[in-house]
């Protein structure tokens, strides 16, 4: 029954990480801010170094908390630079990500931590393969509350993050729609520019750091962009775009995991391939198909 012990928890984490990233990805795509995932993966470095200096260990909840603080700080600085410098999103993100990454490297060099394995890869990124739940032997065991205590903490953590972000999304759906499509209209409604900016970038930072910790960067960066971009190609309505993106994210997570694990074996590989990589490939493939389909539709009408 290795399916229940290995594959079920891994697929659950892949789906939850994909849903969390895809949800905020919709905002990034519409705001022409798709680079934010990459930017955050660099912005968290000073937070990780600070977390190590505080806790003395490369990977603890302290490093993750510090990474989140660094991500939120970076998101705030991006908003500030856009406001003060009147720069476009890509420039502001580029400036902040390089500056913060450089600050992180500087911290490593000046605090004598250069001799340590201190990089984002080891301190923050998780992998869905390592999420196992050795407890259940049969399907019935899953329902037995005695085993829930041993449930990998990534699953409740990500489920909670996704639930909170979804609730925030539903409660502010009207405002989000307005400021996303017409930022100036938000200001006339009495919503200061920096409030919306900070709220949106903060939500993205929370989603990305939580998903990085559980599933690693490849899966998260792909899921921030691909499902929302695919959904954007299939519909012009904002609400149906969000539902479609969540559907594409779930599909990519399930199909990608199965291909990486069992597809590789069926093709004769002696070992499974990296599941996050498989999921990212499938997400890209779905986006490609959607793009071709959209073009074909335009040509035929």
């Amino acid at each position: 029954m290795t399916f229940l012990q290995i594959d079920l928890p891994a697929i659950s984490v892949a789906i939850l990480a994909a849903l969390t990233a895809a949800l905020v990805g919709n905002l990034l795509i519409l705001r022409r801010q798709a680079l934010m995932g990459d930017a955050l993966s660099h912005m968290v470095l000073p937070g990780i170094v600070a977390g190590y200096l505080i806790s003395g260990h490369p990977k603890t909840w302290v490093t993750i908390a510090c990474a989140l603080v660094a991500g939120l700080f970076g998101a705030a600085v991006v908003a500030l630079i856009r406001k003060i410098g009147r720069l476009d999103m890509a420039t502001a993100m580029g400036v902040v990500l390089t500056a913060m990454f450089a600050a992180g490297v500087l911290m490593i060099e000046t605090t004598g931590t250069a001799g340590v394995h201190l990089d984002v890869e080891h301190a923050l990124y998780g992998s869905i393969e390592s999420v196992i739940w050795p407890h259940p032997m049969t399907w019935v065991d899953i329902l037995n509350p005695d085993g829930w205590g041993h449930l990998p903490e990534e699953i409740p953590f990500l489920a909670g993050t996704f639930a909170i972000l979804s609730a925030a999304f539903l409660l502010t759906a009207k405002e989000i729609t307005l400021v996303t499509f017409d930022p100036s209209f938000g200001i006339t409604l009495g919503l200061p520019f920096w409030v919306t900016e900070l709220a949106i970038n903060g939500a993205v930072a929370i989603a990305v750091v939580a998903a990085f910790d559980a599933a690693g960067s490849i899966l998260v960066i792909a899921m921030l962009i691909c499902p929302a971009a695919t959904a954007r190609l299939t519909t012009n309505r904002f609400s149906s775009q969000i539902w479609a993106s969540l559907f594409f994210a779930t599909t990519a997570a399930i199909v990608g995991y199965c291909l990486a694990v069992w597809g590789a074996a069926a093709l004769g590989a002696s070992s499974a391939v990296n599941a996050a990589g498989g999921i990212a490939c499938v997400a890209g493939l779905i986006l490609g198909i959607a793009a071709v389909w959209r073009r074909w539709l335009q040509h035929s009408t």
Partner: protein
Amino acid sequence: MRHSISILSRLLRSALIAFLATTSSAMAAERPNVLTTIAQIGEPLGRILDGCADVQTLLGPGVDPHLYRLTRTDVAKALRADAIVANGLNLEAQMQSLFGRLAPIKPVILASELLPDVKIIRPDGRSADPHIWMDPILWAEVLSMTSNRFVEIWPSCKQIIVNNQSVVIAEIKAIDLYAESRLATVPEKARVLVTAHDAFGYFGRRYGLELLSVQGISTESEAGVAHIRKLVSVIAHRNIASVFVETSTPERAVDAVIEGARALGAQVKKGKPLFSDAMGSPDSYEGSYIGMIDHNVTTIVRGLGGNAPRNGMQALLAFLPKGER
């Protein structure tokens, strides 16, 4: 009378041997299996547990444990194994949460973390240098503590483990003596080891070599320009004959250092690749722990102008190791 006693004792002994033989063949049918991460543990431990358990190694030749990624196949192996042995000290950072989840249901031994803390090098005072195997005497200690844990886990294997352990430890002591005597032939001023990354801390401490590395301890970090410039002037001023590359790290930074030192008029050449994190292929001499250390010692001694046989302590080294370009 004395004659009959000796016959009796002989009979008893052969009965005992026959009894041991049947129990061990009964055990062979369902031998437990042990999964190790790196071959530096897996190869010697496989010999110590030979006849008691089957030992498998996860990271093959040429795989850098710092950059390794877990696959579902490896997770399934870990879940199936009866016991797991890893180096610990953060070497297998990507597998730590997996081991944490397996620890409640099966023995998970972090071998190097069994050592008393005073023997562990902490370059910045906090984080440990995980490359303990570079010091054969420390590694022998790690291996015997690990195999003693298996005596506790499978008490019926005690005799096998104790016998095999003494053979393996004796071999490791022999390679340590070889290393000590050969490195003593290197001129004192030239006892400086310049390598691509900091994997040789324990080696240097054991044999009194000064260490300079081009990169940091992780194979991912890049060398700073100022650091390279400093290295170049040290090499030129102290007439260091060789700078070493490793089988699992890129050579570009080392090439830059050599070029710089030559521009200052130094007679420095690139030494043969050393084994740091990875070992040779499993069926070769360099794929054994002893062979790996023999290769490194012989290469370093000859590269620094000391005296060592070209094919090593046991005349088993291939002149050009696999991975040499």
